[in-house]
């Protein structure tokens, strides 16, 4: 099977390509970029004239909800949504039921994703058994089963001592710890950023210090133990500063933020809109600007969707009783490209933040179009404006604060392992 994508504007940050170039794919792999191989006869040719051609996107954090929460979504439904969004690799979280703390759970998810065939799915395993924060999971076994990292997500650790040991043990297995920095006692069942909005609405707040204190504490541990750690979903300006300093000091730290945190602030919550309920919460304009600076200067090396599909009922309650999180796979790319329009990022840096850099954090080979690499790519129409609504979303979760908003780009083709798996003719 030979596939060519011609006449497109190809952006591949890893290879510093940002120009018109044709892409040639054979047997699932990239075999040439720019120059047509000798004796080339394509079986299929896609004309990407006045479109972008990108490496398939790499998403650091998607809850696929299976097993255990099939009423919210399934591996099949969400990987299909990923394909429509140009995402070809996904890391999913251990917060299923049962929790991903044994090789059998990892294998189950891998089987489900293989039979769906829409996206490469990588599994982040549980740091502790049943995410109880107390007993270490069998990390060597999880790694052998294919886990790319371990995390306790937002489940609290019983003590700082257990956290230290878990980090050290993960390091012994050469596993990255995906840390969600939060001092749970300070968060104290809060549901919004603690500030004037929480005060006005009378909603319990989560102070910025609930995050920054955890970041500071863990940086101290990382400095002493030299354990590779990725901070997930940084939401405050102050954390960005601390992480920047730690990276300057050559500590093995990476960090990301979510695409919604680069746009939304606690101001959006006027009117108690449960769709704005997020963890970590959307914070102040200063925090948002701090995060934008963080992606500009490289302190934050990935933007993620932080995809959390929910059933409709999960958001049909007074604000505090709604479940946090948004369904965001399908807005990751349009909103990231919007940052280019707003002159926050160059096109190449924007693409890097959702392809090669998250792939590096996961330690997977993806996110580029090197000759010989797995041919995962997507084609994007930058001139197609559309309104996001619950009918045109493929994710089973329609929970996003962006419903009704205009998006200014759209994926037209997604190629996985050299095969066209998604096409949108944009009629």
């Amino acid at each position, binding site marked *: 099977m030979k596939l060519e994508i011609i006449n497109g504007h190809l952006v591949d940050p890893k290879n510093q390509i940002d120009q018109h170039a044709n892409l040639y794919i054979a047997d699932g792999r990239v075999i040439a970029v720019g120059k047509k191989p000798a004796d080339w006869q394509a079986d299929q040719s896609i004309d990407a004239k006045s479109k972008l051609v990108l490496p398939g996107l790499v998403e650091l954090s998607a809850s696929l909800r299976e097993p255990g929460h099939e009423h919210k979504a399934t591996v099949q439904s969400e990987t299909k949504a990923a394909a429509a969004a140009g995402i070809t690799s996904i890391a999913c979280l251990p917060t299923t039921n049962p929790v991903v703390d044994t090789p059998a759970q990892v294998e189950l998810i891998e089987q489900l994703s293989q039979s769906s065939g829409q996206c490469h799915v990588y599994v982040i395993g549980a740091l502790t058994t049943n995410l109880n924060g107390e007993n270490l999971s069998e990390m060597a076994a999880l790694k052998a089963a294919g886990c790319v990292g371990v995390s306790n997500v937002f489940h609290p650790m019983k003590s700082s001592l257990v956290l230290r040991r878990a980090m050290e043990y993960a390091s012994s297995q050469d596993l990255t710890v995906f840390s969600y920095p939060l001092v749970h006692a300070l968060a104290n069942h809060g549901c919004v950023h603690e500030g004037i909005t929480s005060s006005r609405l*009378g909603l319990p707040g989560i102070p910025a210090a609930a995050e920054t204190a955890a970041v500071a504490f863990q940086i101290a541990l990382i400095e002493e133990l030299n354990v590779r750690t990725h901070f997930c979903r940084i939401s405050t300006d102050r954390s960005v500063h601390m992480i920047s300093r730690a990276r300057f000091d050559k500590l093995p730290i990476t960090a990301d933020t979510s695409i919604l945190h680069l746009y939304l602030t606690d101001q959006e919550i006027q009117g108690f809109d449960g769709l704005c309920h997020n963890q970590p919460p959307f914070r102040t304009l200063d925090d948002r600007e701090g995060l934008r600076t963080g992606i500009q200067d490289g302190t934050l090396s990935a933007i993620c969707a932080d995809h959390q599909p929910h059933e409709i009922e999960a958001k049909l*309650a007074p604000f*505090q009783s709604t479940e946090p999180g948004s369904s965001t796979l399908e807005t990751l790319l349009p909103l990231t490209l919007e940052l280019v329009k707003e002159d926050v990022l160059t096109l190449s840096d924007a693409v890097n933040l959702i392809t090669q850099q998250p792939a590096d954090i996961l330690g997977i080979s993806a996110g580029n179009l090197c000759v010989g690499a797995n041919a995962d790519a997507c084609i994007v129409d930058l001139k197609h404006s559309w309104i996001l609504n619950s009918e045109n979303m493929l994710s089973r979760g329609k929970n996003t604060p962006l419903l009704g908003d205009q998006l200014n780009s759209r994926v037209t083709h997604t190629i996985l392992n050299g095969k066209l798996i998604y096409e949108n003719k944009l009629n």
Partner: protein
Amino acid sequence: MRHFLQIDGLSTKDLHHILDTTESFTSIDDRAVKKVPLLRGKTIVNLFFEPSTRTRTTFELAAKRLSADVLNINIATSATTKGESLLDTLFNLQAMNSDMFIVRHPESGAAEFISNYVDSHVSVINAGDGRHAHPTQAMLDMFTIRKHYKEFSKLRVAIVGDILHSRVARSQIEALNILGAKEIRVIAPRTLLPANVAQLGVEVFQNCKEGLFNVDVVIMLRLQKERMQGGFIPSEHEYFQLYGLTPERLAIAKPNAIVMHPGPINRGVEISSEVADGPQSVILQQVKYGIAVRMAILSLAMSSADENGGGN
């Protein structure tokens, strides 16, 4: 004004209209037959997800004096423990052709949430949602103040105590700002103040000596017993020492300053009996006016709802 959910967003004119309407209802209270036929044939549901005596009773009396049929539903243990969602509870009651829901709920935003899902001819009145708002209480407080002082623009008002957890304080602050009070002060230790509280339009004081100086109105807030467990204050004793309203402390305020409290009061915790029962206390007047204010709000809301839904 089909729904009455919060003070925020209303105009000075709106608030004075409610207060003027209240005035016309106060006389009914003194008649031998305390009833007018304004809401005859209407069904009003008191939907209380949190225990309450005073607020529920005054709403019930207000509705009955307007000749409405009143249904009291107490779901203090929360319907969710029985597996029924808030919306399902609501839709069931709505199916019984209710015209108005008076809602108290422990979560902020609950009344507004419900208002988004009722039929177009149905009104929702917020009788207290979490820490967010208690707008009818704030209106009866404004009415009580207006009974004693002609102009809000000359008034200094101090609110003392647990501002953090108080929906009453939030609504009072909004109402006083809209009505143009000269100065609104909050007096509390920092543990009982919400973040960025000054941005709500108040002056912040940590002690009574400065905070009560020269004020015309002193509003005391109830201190819940569980605040001692949460590390907000060390003891009732120390709280009373620092913030309890005693005759000596009240003397810091203007000589004829009025003392208010949304009730129920904790004698010896936030207020001494001498002050609570003293000549400057208007606490029982507040309760009395509570009925007239609620009659005004129920009738104003119902007439808007009738215009809105064609009223049958």
